[in-house]
């Protein structure tokens, strides 16, 4: 029988307390007008914000105190993360490190990697990018061709990565590279490495997106040296680690709250007394959002208990990003708007513009809709 592993966890007292701290922190950020919340999202880079969030203890919250963390629960992290998203906090500087790179290093990294890197992530001073996609290996991740070969001074990496968000700001990339034979299932012979981008042998070139923003990069490695103790996990264990990492990457509230601020601006513009049609349209969106919050919290709880809810994570991302794509379309139906990035004083038009220009990425980044649906189909037993 098709059944999913979704539950309705309650947030423990610790999570409620931290959430309340996060709300106060963010209310202060907004009051001080530290960032333009109608157009910022988790993919807006703002190193100053990340340092303030780090100083307030909101990064690496679940990690051991010895590495700068606070040993709080994954549900507490969920609660705080959701607050950041709902407030449009410009979190991209620390987002990837906090969401997936840090947890990978904690689980599989060397002692030196943990000691040198994790405390800086927690302070909001150290940023990561994801080195998975390549020019000829996007959805087909197992086709990775970047090669790492063992030398007496460590590993030498040759090859290139693409669509690497943050690379031009990041201190490190975690690079997925081929270290051996792929094997029959094509999942063998892959290993992850922490690449210190301050070292020679790496060239980072910008790719501008259709909104005119520089988030993406192409990254070239030429005999780039990675010391032995900056390998993550055992040689050849990359595929399993990446699979688990993607469950973190896919199931979080960032997969359905990317344009939450547009919904907020829409409601502000509609006012307290919507007409029936407006109420129906907004109510439909909100009913989707409540369902997604519940699904995502449930996955966070399972991940926190060490489970691997890969099917549930794929469902959160597929349903969640479709919701994100729907928000601007509904907003346009509810209230006439001519979206504009620079119409002064018109927060709704600016928010709509920001979302529409970025929406294509929602259902591509972190695994395309088609890849996710393939995973879900596998979970249903179709493949």
């Amino acid at each position, binding site marked *: *029988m*098709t*059944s*999913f592993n*979704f*539950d*309705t966890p*309650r*947030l423990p007292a610790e999570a*409620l307390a931290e959430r309340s701290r996060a709300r106060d922190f963010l209310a202060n950020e907004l009051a001080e007008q530290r960032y333009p919340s109608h157009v910022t999202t988790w993919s807006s880079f703002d190193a100053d914000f990340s340092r303030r969030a780090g100083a307030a203890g909101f990064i690496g919250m679940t990690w051991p105190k010895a590495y700068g963390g606070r040993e709080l629960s994954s549900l507490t992290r969920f*609660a705080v993360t*959701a607050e950041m998203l*709902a407030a449009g906090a410009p979190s991209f500087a620390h987002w990837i490190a906090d969401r997936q790179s840090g947890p990978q290093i904690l689980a599989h990294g060397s002692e030196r990697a943990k000691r040198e890197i994790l405390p800086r992530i927690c302070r909001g001073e150290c940023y990561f990018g994801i080195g998975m996609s390549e020019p000829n290996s996007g959805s087909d991740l197992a086709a990775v061709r970047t090669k790492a070969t063992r030398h007496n001074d460590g590993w030498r990496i040759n090859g290139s990565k693409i669509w690497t968000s943050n690379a031009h700001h990041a201190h490190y990339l975690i690079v997925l590279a081929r270290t051996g034979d792929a094997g029959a299932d094509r999942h063998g012979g892959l290993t992850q490495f922490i690449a210190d981008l301050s070292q020679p042998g790496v060239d980072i070139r910008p790719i501008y997106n259709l909104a005119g923003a520089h988030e993406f990069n192409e990254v070239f490695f030429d005999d780039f040296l990675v010391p032995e103790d900056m390998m993550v996990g055992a040689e050849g264990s990359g595929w399993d680690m990446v699979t688990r990492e993607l469950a973190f990457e896919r199931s979080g509230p960032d997969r359905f709250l990317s344009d*939450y601020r547009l*919904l*907020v*601006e*829409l*409601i*502000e513009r*509609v*006012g*307290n*007394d*919507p007409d*029936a049609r*407006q*109420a*129906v*349209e*907004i*109510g*439909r969106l*909100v*009913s*989707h*959002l*409540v*369902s*997604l*919050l*519940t*699904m995502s*919290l449930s996955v966070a709880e399972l991940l926190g208990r060490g489970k691997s809810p890969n099917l*549930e994570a794929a*469902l959160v991302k*597929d*349903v969640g990003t*479709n919701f994100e794509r729907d928000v601007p379309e509904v907003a346009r139906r509810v209230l006439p708007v001519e979206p504009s990035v620079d119409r002064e004083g018109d927060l709704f038009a600016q928010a709509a513009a920001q979302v529409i220009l970025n929406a294509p990425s929602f259902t591509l980044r972190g695994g395309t809709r*088609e890849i*996710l*649906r*393939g995973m*879900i*189909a596998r*979970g*249903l*037993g*179709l*493949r």
Partner: protein
Amino acid sequence: MNPDTIAADDITTIVHDQADRLFRDLISPKLLALCEREPWPAEVWAAIEESGLPLALAPEARGGIGLSMAAVGGLIALAGYHTVPLPLAETILAQALWSRAAGTVPEGPAALAPANSADSVTIEPCADGYRLAGNSRSVPWGSHVTNIVVFARNEQREGFLVLVPGFMTWSTVSSNLAGEPRADVVLSGIVVPDSLVRPAPRELTHGLMPVGALVRAFQMVGAMRRVVNQAVEYAGERSQFGRPIGKFQAIQQQLAEAAGHLAASEAACARAASEVDGPDFLFFAAVAKSRAGEAAGKVAEICHQVHGAMGFTQEHTLHFATRRLWSWRDEFGGEAYWQEIVGRTACAGGGPALWPRLNAFS
């Protein structure tokens, strides 16, 4: 986990397993087809009553099983999965609500009224007790039950529950798309003694519609689970172009989309069940019915598409669940009705107030 929780989880599992076996034994395509001509399979109801399942939500002190709303939702979803052609969900609610209000469990199958957003019933004291006014259209099973639990308001807008014996009502019967009987019940002029009238329990501030909507949402989750299973199974069996159609990405993508709708509906129902005693139950019940109702249409569409012409025949069993989905989504309020409530609530406090409401989880 404390010992009480473990015990409660165990009891839930036992009840769910028992219900699954019972429904599997009792409900066949032949029975379902027969029920559409002759709508009350008395021996099936007798077996369900014998099992004690109608008492799932009634408090233990009143002889009930005392399950949580979430656990009862799971049971009701199973009834939806097996398309039980009887008012089990309504009776579970009626017995729980009346026993909470009056201290006794009413005998026999029961219906709930009003069951749509357009009807309301009023109540006023009279010499022999209380007199009702108003009619209630399309009451599920209203013509076949021992009692109808009616929600009525007096002139001061205070809510009451009234246990109206079925024999006192007069009704015109029609059927929903799955051939389940729906009755336009005339309540005006009915006089009931004091013993059949109770102030409505606190959780019924907004009448029976929110709880009715939530049980329909759970039923839809069960029926959606059924048709997704059927479609996955069929896609593995049916071959075209030399391979099972489930190997085609076009089919896989559609079924994955259906699974997403099902998963989101499950989550919305679970959330509403967990909020049943909270101040925002109306909002979360509205979310659940909106989400599951929207999903029901999409999931039925996809599962029919996957089944091809075979699924469109009377011979195939797919329609027992899909016709119920097409009816249940509109009973106890359709999507637009509940979405409007969600939307008005969302807008009432302005943009910044929405988030704390959605994300309470406390």
